[in-house]
């Protein structure tokens, strides 16, 4: 049975002196899945990300949430809060998006200054993940090795399907795999635009006593995710951001 949860979010905006009469705006909502009466049931939990850099010149952004990791086009909700108490310190919040107005293909939503929070829906639109097929071919022997993505396997025998099975059973840091006979399909864990060069046969190292090979075919280039959320601190000294994702 699908897990469900009841999460209620309430919001109010109030001021006694911004206008000539008092201002009170309030909104309440039980968080539901897209187009459904079922509640959002998954969450990252409430967490804190602390940033710190050696100097102002090396401040960089951090990916807070990757679109690839979550269901796209849903009713995901993001909560962010800058925990700093120094008024000048802020986190800039970015989306990767299809274009990018802030260099490197990101677009600024806005700045969260000390104590500011944000709560917003998140589309989690991932990109296309690069794929390729590596086919174990020709003559292999026990003791031959195959290496890719920092993972090496040693053939237990000369059967190409068995070697492919060994490869498929590996846990690659940047790829997931599936197998059909001697062909192993690799799919990148994360979408990225790798440019014009897809993974090629030469990227795999084979050490074989015979003419064993690992032929790459059906390479498909990836495209970048369109919804990754990045944050970037304004100072290199320690800053902390509280965050939570409630998602489909």
């Amino acid at each position: 049975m699908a897990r469900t949860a009841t999460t209620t979010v309430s919001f109010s905006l109030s001021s006694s002196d911004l206008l000539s009469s008092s201002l009170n705006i309030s909104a309440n909502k039980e968080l539901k899945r897209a187009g459904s009466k079922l509640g959002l049931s998954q969450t990252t939990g409430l967490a804190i990300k602390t940033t710190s850099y050696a100097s102002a010149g090396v401040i960089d952004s951090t990916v807070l949430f990757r679109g690839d990791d979550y269901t796209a086009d849903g009713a995901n909700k993001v909560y962010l809060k800058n925990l700093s108490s120094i008024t000048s310190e802020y986190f800039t919040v970015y989306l990767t998006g299809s274009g990018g107005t802030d260099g490197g293909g990101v677009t600024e939503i806005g700045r969260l200054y000390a104590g500011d929070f944000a709560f917003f829906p998140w589309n989690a639109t991932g990109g296309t993940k690069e794929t390729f097929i590596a086919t174990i071919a020709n003559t292999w022997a026990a003791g031959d090795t195959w290496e890719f993505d920092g993972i090496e396997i040693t053939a237990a025998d000369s059967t190409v399907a068995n070697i492919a099975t060994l490869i498929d059973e590996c846990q690659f840091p940047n790829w997931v795999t599936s197998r059909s006979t001697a062909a192993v399909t690799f799919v990148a864990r994360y979408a990225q635009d790798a440019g014009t060069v897809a993974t090629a046969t030469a990227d795999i190292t084979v050490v074989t006593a015979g003419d064993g090979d690992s032929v790459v075919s059906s390479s498909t280039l990836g495209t970048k995710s369109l919804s990754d959320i990045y944050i970037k601190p304004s100072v290199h000294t320690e800053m902390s951001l509280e965050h939570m994702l409630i998602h489909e």
Partner: protein
Amino acid sequence: MATTTATLTLTSPDVTGHSFNMTQVATLTKAASSTGLDEFTGITSRKYASAQTDTVIVADSIYADTTVAHKVYIRNTSTGSSDHILVELEGNIIIGRLYPGDWMFIPYGGTLDVQVTTTATNVSIEYGVFSQSVAS
């Protein structure tokens, strides 16, 4: 100086393995300052008779940018469960979908329009901007 307070409360008995209850309060101030935001558009309420495509609800041209702490509030005031509003920044930078009753409150840099796209008819929305008159 105006004092505007935003309060967020999130509660759930079961979204995690334990009961969860969080309340956050923020006073809306200008960038890098303890002075309150001094502008507010008021809350605009619209009901779109037809589907909308990239309809501008917040135009960047009328706001200071660069060093600002503007805030945008948007709510889908439609009823039902499926008539969502897609909220984007200019250039098809998609933020997310507001389903009926959903709301959002985000910092706004004032450099891009905020737009909405809908597919259903008679979708209702309310929105407003709290802003600073000049950049800090």
